[in-house]
């Protein structure tokens, strides 16, 4: 199996590694870098538990190869908190009970971050459409919608 040297910026930090061609980005993050906040729920791009931002765009890291991230910027849940302060999206999920088992939560929050970056004042329909590629089995989505609205309001108030 061919090996490739890749350079990826992960949560602002430059990382270099030698990886197999077939190594998935999610395994690179979880097993090579031990950033286990990004979860695996289906391996087939349906559930969104593995969502990370690649150059700011949400991708399902179970169907992106690590080599495809070479030279690019990856953001994961571990990079959301800054200087000991939760990101507004994290704070929103905390305040509005937007999580239960916590398994879909990192992917759900990364998708929400991307939404708010492009649309700071989303409607409920905008939010539901944005997170429709992220499955949650616990919350019934109502409080996730509220969490994103909470985050949007907080970000706008800043």
């Amino acid at each position, binding site marked *: 199996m061919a090996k490739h040297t890749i350079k990826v910026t992960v949560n602002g930090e430059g990382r270099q590694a030698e990886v197999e061609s077939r190594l998935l980005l999610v395994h690179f993050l979880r097993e090579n870098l031990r950033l286990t906040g990004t979860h695996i729920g289906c391996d087939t791009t349906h559930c969104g538990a593995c969502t990370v931002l690649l150059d700011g765009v949400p991708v399902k890291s179970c169907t992106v190869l690590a080599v495809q991230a070479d030279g690019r910027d990856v953001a994961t849940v571990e990079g959301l908190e800054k200087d000991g302060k939760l990101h507004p999206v994290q704070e929103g999920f*905390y*305040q509005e009970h937007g999580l239960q088992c916590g398994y879909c939560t990192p992917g759900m929050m990364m998708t929400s971050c991307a939404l708010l970056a492009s649309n700071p004042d989303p409607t409920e329909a905008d939010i539901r459409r944005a997170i429709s590629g992220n499955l949650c089995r616990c*919350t019934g989505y109502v409080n996730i919608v509220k969490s994103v609205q909470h985050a949007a309001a907080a970000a706008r108030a800043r």
Partner: protein
Amino acid sequence: MATPRTSPEVGGMGHSIKRKEDPRFLRGKGNYVDDIQLPGMLHMDIVRSPFAHAKIVKIDSSKALKVPGVLAVITGETLAQYKLHWMPTLMSDTQMVLPTEKVMYQAQEVAAVIATDRYAAADGVEAVEVEYDPLPVVVDPFKALEPGAPVLRTDKPGKKDNRIFHWEAGDRQATEKALSASDVVVRQDIYLPRIHVASIETCGIVADFDRIRGKLTVYMTTQAPHAIRTVIALVAGHVGLSEEKIRVVSPDIGGGFGGKVPVYPGYVIAIAASVVIGKPVKWVEDRMENLQADSFARDYHITAAIGAKKDGTMTALQIKTVADHGYADAAANPSKFPAGLFSICTGSYRLPTAFAEVDGVYTNKPPGGIAYRCSFRVTEAVHAIERMTDVLAQELKMDPADLRMKNFIQPGEFPYKSALGWEYDSGNYPAALKKAMDIVGYAELRREQAEKRKRGELMGIGISSFTEIVGAGPSKHFDILGIKMFDSCELRVHPTGKATARFGTKSQGQGHETTYAQVIAEELGIPAAHVEVEEGDTDTAPYGLGTYASRSTPVGAAAGAVAARKVREKAKKIAAHLLEVSEDDLVWEPGKFSVKGAPQKSTTIQDIAFAAYTNHPQGMEAGLEAVDYYDPPNLTFPFGSYICVVDIDRGTGEIKVRRFVAVDDCGNIINPMIVDGQIHGGLTMGLAPALFEEIHYDESGNIQGGSFMDYLLPTAMETPKWETDKTITPSPHHPLGAKGVGESATVGAPPAIANAVVDALSHLGVKHIDIPITPEKVWKIMKEKGVAE
């Protein structure tokens, strides 16, 4: 109990305090099984059968063993050397771990590959060559019961048919007599298809056997770690695993819903591999394995009849069910209840006479019969009675709300003994339905519907007034493999007045670290913020049967409350010593004892805790702790009324849930925010099987829909904005008056939705549609009735 007794700072019952588990989850610092990486850890992957029924002619591992990184291929023959190729199910049936002769369902485990990483293990799986000789497949449970059907369980000596069990409750003759004496009798076949809980985290294990200490540590996605430890000790005792040397850790669990109660073959193979190789072995199934091979739920073929007088008074209920359990009965029901608590099927109604029977059947499908976020077949029972109530209303030309109101068990009739033998603890069914009707604006909706019908538009209103039966259970009747269904709390109050509480249950997202802390806060006045809750580690937590069937609040939280009261009893003796008065002169309010008539003379729980270690009365044991193994005197009976409003697109058959009002009554509430969240989630898991989810098999036993491509979980787009409200009718026998809530909505929602869709089409003569009610089914009906656009 609407008003909290404690201050927000203490955070006892009734406060919506933020969850203590969230800070780690929000930062990606949860610790799920697949996050565990141990030094030298190996990975396991599984070879699965493409056939639903076949003889295994040959397994050739030679090519697999040449794959770089592959260390071993484990087959049934390997396990047979250790007599580990079969295991018991939780229903005292037997199930193969790995086969030595034949496979019994598609996706059955055939061999396991152990390798240095997960990619090499997958390569190894591809390289294992298995030769099969296909056998006749039995998919239809009715055909399986026919004389002359191939007998599937040839491993069972003397087994001559495919029947697993026959179970019945009630009076057969009296019910038949009552039905024939009824003015009206309606009959309906109702099928509840095979579905899968599909928690977003799949199942997995890291088995770590330490050869020097002889200790096995198992990190496992399990809802019942203590029971699993005992099962491991019983199954593998003969190879040297002894219960005190087995530690089962259930770390953070990414959703359970019943799917993480059973023992799956993958767990056992990974444990065996770790013991033999002496290194940690990880196995985490992928989504397709999860959907195709893990225990399923439901698959109940129901035939029901309900009788009534002309005025709508219900007279009798008769239900016959064929239950497809797949190749093995791997449900997780209490021993005495092979059909679970299906006999709650008389529901919320005064039904003087009833009879229910269930026949369990073997077929060539994966083993199971577990719950899907419900207490032991309660969803099946509720769906049957709530659908039948609507079928009856339609026959009588009565409004379904009026029919329900007429037949409800009345508030003054509790405790109510049902015709099938349950003693309902408490309820106020008319109040819940009335509240739901007021919120939704029922009368106005009926007017709107009438107008829309004139215009040819299809709109339906569906009601479900369900009664659950949860919190197993009294140990007199309830056990799993003989282990009684109590649960436990060990509470330690430390010298500085902070506490650690350990429980025998295991949260999978329900928020026990928060709600159990609130229970202790309620009882002792120690702020919930200073109560550390621990669960899921058999080395530290007291023995308990785990979390499923909504039993954590009815049993676990009750154990917490009683343990706290035991602590309070001792605290009272210490307080009397500190205040130099008699115990009889003390009054308790959350957090402190004071002297009757002299409230300024008081001592706090924190002062008492310190004294328990520094200044305890002579002759008294030091310390301030207690253990309680709580054995509930009865089950609890949460209830509610749901109203669903749907609009149907005549062009596509698409069903739009316009509104859904859920009024729930789970007795006294520990954390309103968490209760609301549980109901939102439960409603969505009720919507799912009502409209989307089904696992179907073709005649050859091939699964149709074993991935998220075909098995449709509701997304945020399909899920409506749930409207929730509540009534509060405390349980009279629970120490906190609570009943449990995690599954109410999953149980109550499907018939509300099904009833709404049927209601939208009822004027066309439609009486019933089996769930999932897909656009295709609706469109076909509309086409047949000439209303499709």
